[in-house]
C-alpha cells in the first residue's frame, strides 16, 4: 500500500486534540455478532473534461469481467473489486451546451436551468439525499472536496458555478466544496475540541439570535443568505450533538500530522492529500459520504508531471482527432485513474470486521462526458469499486441497454446505503 502522508495509525499516536473513536473500536465489540457489520460508505470521484472513449472502454473477458484498457490499466490489479459500466448517461444533459450542463446534474439526473446569473436551478444530488437521510449518524453529514476555487463567470449561457459543484442540497443550493486540505482536516477533527468548550453553546445562541434579528430587518434580497447563515449555525450545533453522543473512549489525534496549510502548489500532492483525507474520514467514521471533483469542468490545467502533457487538459480534450492531442488526452485520463487506484489502496489497507474498508464502501469514478471533443453525453466513463458491505457483486463489465439512466446506479447505491427510495432522477430501476 502506498503510504499516505499521515496514516490513520500515525494520527492515533501521540498527544494532541481528543478525537471521537472510530466506529469499530467503540461500538463493534459490544454488539451482537449479527449487528457487527461495518457501516456502508459511499464516495464519488469525478474527473472533468471526459475521456477518450477508445482509451477508456475495456473489452469483456469470457467470465463477464473486463480486460484493462489503456486508461484502466492502473486498476488491473483490482479488477475483481471493480465493475465497469457501459451505456449509462444522464438523458437530461443531452440538450445543454458545454461542460457545465453535464457536470452539475451528474449526481442529480436533472436538467439545469440555463442561466449565467444567480438564479441557479438543479436538483438534489444523490450524496446530499443520502446525507439528509443518514448524515446525522456521523460527525459530518458529508464531505465535499475539490481542488479549484470557482470564479463565477458566464460561459455558453451557464454560470461556471455549475461547473464546480457536484453536491446540491436543494435545487438552488450548491453545497460548495473544500479545496484546502488543512481546513478539511481541521473540520474533521474539530468536533472534539468543540465539545470541550464550555461557553460555545452560549456563544452560538447569541449568534443565532443576531441572525434572526438581522433577518427581520433586512429586505427580501438578503433573506437567502441570512437563512443560510442560520442553517450553518444549526449545522454546527448538530455536529456537536453528534460528537457528544460519541463521547466515550476518545483517542488522541496528533495535530502535528495534519497536512500543511494552504492550497498545495503541486497538483499531484493536492490530489493525494484529498484522497488521504477521504480515506481518513471513512476510516474514523467521521463521515460516510464524500464527493471529490478533481478539477472544475473546463479545467485547463497543464500536466507537466505526465510526460508529453505540458499543455492544458481542456485543450487536449478537444483533440479534433489529432494524434498529438489524443495521446496526451489519454495519458491524462490514465493519470486520474492511477490516482483513484491509490484511494482504493488506502481503503483496502484498513481492516474492518472480517474485510476491509474498501469492502464496506461503494466508490465511484466517473466523468460527466465521454468524448470531450464533442461534449458527448452518451456512454459515460463510470466504474464502481467496493462491495458496499457485501451487497454488490464485483469484477464485472455491465453492458446496459443504450442510454440507460446513470441514476439507476445512484438508485442502487442509495438503497445499499440504507436510503429507502423507489426512484431517483429519471431512474425507477436499479442496476444491482
Amino acid at each position, binding site marked *: 500500500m502506498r503510504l499516505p502522508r499521515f496514516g490513520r495509525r500515525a494520527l492515533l499516536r501521540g498527544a494532541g486534540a481528543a478525537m471521537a473513536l472510530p466506529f469499530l473500536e467503540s461500538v463493534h465489540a459490544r454488539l451482537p455478532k449479527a449487528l457487527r457489520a461495518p457501516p456502508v460508505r459511499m464516495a464519488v470521484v469525478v474527473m472533468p473534461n471526459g475521456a477518450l472513449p477508445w482509451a477508456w472502454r475495456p473489452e469483456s473477458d469470457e467470465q463477464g469481467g473486463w480486460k484493462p484498457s489503456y486508461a484502466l490499466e492502473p486498476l488491473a490489479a483490482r479488477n475483481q473489486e471493480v465493475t465497469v459500466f457501459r451505456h449509462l448517461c444522464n438523458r437530461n444533459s443531452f440538450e445543454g*451546451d*458545454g461542460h457545465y450542463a453535464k457536470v452539475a446534474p451528474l449526481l442529480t439526473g436533472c436538467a439545469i436551468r440555463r442561466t449565467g*446569473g*444567480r438564479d441557479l436551478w438543479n436538483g438534489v444530488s444523490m450524496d446530499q439525499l443520502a446525507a439528509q437521510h443518514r448524515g446525522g449518524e456521523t460527525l459530518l453529514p458529508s464531505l465535499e472536496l475539490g481542488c479549484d*476555487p*470557482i*470564479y*463565477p463567470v458566464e*460561459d*455558453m449561457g451557464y454560470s461556471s*458555478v455549475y461547473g464546480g459543484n457536484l453536491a446540491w442540497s436543494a435545487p438552488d*443550493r*450548491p*453545497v*460548495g466544496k*473544500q479545496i*484546502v486540505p*488543512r*481546513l478539511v482536516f481541521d*473540520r474533521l477533527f*474539530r468536533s472534539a475540541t468543540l465539545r470541550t468548550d*464550555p*461557553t460555545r453553546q*452560549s*456563544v*452560538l445562541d*447569541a*449568534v443565532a*439570535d*443576531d*441572525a434572526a*434579528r*438581522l433577518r427581520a*430587518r*433586512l*429586505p*427580501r*434580497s*438578503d433573506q*437567502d*443568505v*441570512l437563512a*443560510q*447563515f442560520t442553517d*450553518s*449555525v444549526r449545522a*454546527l450545533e448538530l455536529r456537536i450533538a453528534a460528537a457528544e453522543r460519541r463521547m466515550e473512549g476518545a483517542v488522541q489525534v496528533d495535530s502535528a500530522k495534519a497536512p500543511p*496549510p*494552504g*492550497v498545495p502548489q503541486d497538483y499531484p500532492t493536492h490530489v493525494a492529500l484529498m484522497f488521504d483525507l477521504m480515506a481518513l474520514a471513512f476510516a474514523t467514521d467521521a463521515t460516510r459520504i464524500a464527493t471529490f471533483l478533481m478539477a472544475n469542468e473546463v479545467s485547463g490545467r*497543464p500536466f*507537466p508531471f505526465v510526460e508529453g502533457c*505540458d*499543455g*492544458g487538459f481542456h*485543450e*487536449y480534450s*478537444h483533440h479534433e482527432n489529432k494524434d*498529438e492531442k489524443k495521446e496526451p488526452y489519454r495519458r491524462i485520463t490514465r493519470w486520474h485513474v492511477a490516482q483513484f487506484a491509490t484511494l482504493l489502496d488506502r481503503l483496502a489497507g484498513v481492516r474492518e470486521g472480517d474485510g476491509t474498508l474498501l469492502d464496506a464502501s461503494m466508490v465511484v469514478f466517473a466523468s460527466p462526458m465521454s468524448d470531450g*471533443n464533442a461534449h458527448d453525453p452518451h456512454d459515460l466513463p463510470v466504474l464502481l469499486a467496493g462491495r458496499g458491505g457485501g451487497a454488490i457483486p464485483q469484477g464485472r463489465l455491465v453492458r446496459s441497454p443504450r442510454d440507460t439512466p446513470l441514476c439507476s446506479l445512484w438508485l442502487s447505491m442509495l438503497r445499499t446505503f440504507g436510503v429507502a427510495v423507489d426512484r431517483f432522477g429519471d431512474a425507477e430501476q436499479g442496476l444491482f
Partner: protein
Amino acid sequence: MHAAVVAGLASAALSQQAALPEAREGSPTALASGHDLVERHCVECHTGENAEGQFDVEALWAAAPDDERARRARLALQRVRSRTMPPPDADVQPDAAARRGLFEAFAALVPSAPGERIARARRLSRDAYVRTVRDLCGVDFDAREALPEDVRVHGFDDLGDGPGVAAADFEAWFDAATAIAERMCTADPKVSVVDPAADFDAALRAFVRRAFRRVPTTEELASRTALRERVRTTGADEAAARAAVVRSVLASPAFLLRTEAGEVEAPNRLTPHELAVRLSYLLTGTMPDAELAAAADGGALREVAALQDHARRLLAKDGGRTFGARFVAQWLRAVDVLAANADFRRYPEIWNHGLRPAFLEEIVQLGAEIARENGSVLWLVDCDHAWLDARLASHYGLPKPSGDGFVRVSLPDRRRGGVLGSGAMAMVSSFPLRTSPVLRGRYVLDQLLLANVPPPPPGAGSLPPDDVPVDGASLRAQLERHRRDAKCASCHASMDPLGFALESYDVLGRWRDEVHGQPVDRTGELPDGTTLDGPVALKDELLRREDEFVHAFASQLATFAIGRAMVPADEPELLRIADACLAGEHRFLPLLDALLASPLFSLRDPWLPLRESGGPR
C-alpha cells in the same frame, strides 16, 4: 422625514430625474432624442420586413415591453458598445456623443427586475476580514490558512452575488473568532472589551459599534450582557466571559456580512453608517476609521461634499495603496498573475519566485499613484512612467533604478507604461508554452473596454498548446484558417488584431522581435479597416476610444463600490460619471466624486423613489 435630510435628498432626487434618458443637457446631441438618433443611424438598414439580420429597430419602439423586446434591445446595446453597429462602412458615422445617445436609447428599453438593481449582502472577503480584524481587534490574523477561499464574482472577491454561506464557512469563521478572542486576551495593551479592569458596558457598546459598523440595537447589547453573566455563573473568570462575548461578536452575521437596510423613514436611502461602510471598504478595504465613523454618527455624511472630503482624506492616509491592490489589481486581473503558469523548461525565469509578485506590485503601485495623486485614469492604458524595482527593470531590459524597492521610473519610449506593457497582462493572457493573441485580444476587450466577448461556440476547436510551428504552419496561419469559419469570424475579427498587436511581449512580458527565429507578426486589421502594428499603435487606438475606456473604469468602480453587476438601467448614470472624468482631464477624483454624488452610491435601488424599499421588509 427630518428636515435636515431633505436638502440631501433633493439633490439626489434631482440627479436621479436628470439621469433618465433623452435629457442630457450640454451634450451636442441633447436635442436629438434617442429615437431620432436611431432614425439617423439605424433605420436605413434595420427597418421593415427585409430588415438586415431580421432586426427591425423601429418595431422595437412599437413593440410590447416584453422579454423579447428586452432581448433585442440588449443585443442592440451589445452591438453599439462593441462598435460592430453602425457598421464601419456606413455613410453616417456617429460621433462619441451620438454613440452614447444610442446607448441610452436602447438601455431605456431594457427593464430590469427590481432585484437586479439592489446589491445583496456581501461577505467579508479574506482580505477584508484581515484588514478589519487588524483595525477592530489589534490582531494580525493569517486568514489564508484559516478561512475558505474567496469567490471572485465579476472579477471582485467580495461582491454580493457570491456563493452565500455554507456550513464549512461558518465553522471556519467560528474557529477564527475563537482564535482571535484568545489572542486579544493575551495581547498587551488590550482592547478594552477584553480588559477585565475596563467598564464592561461602555467597552461592549464601543466594540459592538465598531464591529457592526453601526449603532448596535438594545437587544444586540443585552444578549452580550446576558452571555457574560451566564458564563460567569459557570464559575469562569471575567476574562473568559469577555472572550466569549468577543467570539459572539466576531461570529455574528452583523460583523461577517455587509448588509444594507436603509433609513427607517426612507428605506431606499442608505444610512450614513452604510455610506461610511461603502466608502471605507471601497478605498481602504476595511471598516470605517474613527473620523469617518464620527461623521456617520453625526449625520454629516448625508452631504455629498462630506463623503468626497473623507474620500480624499482616506486616499491620502493610505497612499491609495489598498485601492490599487483591491480595485485596480482585481479589475485588471493582475491578481491572477500569482496563479498564472509558464512552462519552466521553456521559461526557466519562472523559477524566480519573486517575479510574479513583482508583476502584481507594478500594477498595484500604478493604481495607487493614480488614486493618491489624482492622476489620469488613462495612465493604465499609456503612461510615461512605471513603478519598478531592480528585478523588474532588468527583466524588462531597462536601466536599473536608483533606490530600493519599487520606485517611479521615467520610461524611454512607449513600449512600457500602463497595463498593456506589463508582465501581469502578458502572463494572464498566455498559455504555459505560448502567448495567445486570442486571449490578449479578449483581455483588451473584456477588461479594458468591458465588451464581454461571448465564449467560443461548441466544437470551435483550439490551437496547439505550443507555438513551435507544426508542419510549417505558424500559429497565426492556423488561427487565420479558424477564422474563415463564419461562426468564429465575427468575434475573432475584433479580438485577434488587438491581440496580435501585443505579440511583441513574450509569455513573461519581455519584449521580443522574433519567435522561434521568425520575426514577430504584430499587425492586424480591425473591422473598421484600421491597421494596428504593435503595442504603441494599440495604445493609440485605445486612446482614440478613451470614452469607452473611461466608461469601463466607471462601470467597474461602481460595481466594486456597490457590490453588484451593472445593468442597462445603470448606463445613463455611468455615462454621466464617465463624462465627469472626461471633462476633468481624465483625472481620477472627478470620476470618484461623480460616483459618490450619484444615486448609484447613495440609494439601495437607484431607480425607485426614496421611500420605497424595493421589496417587503
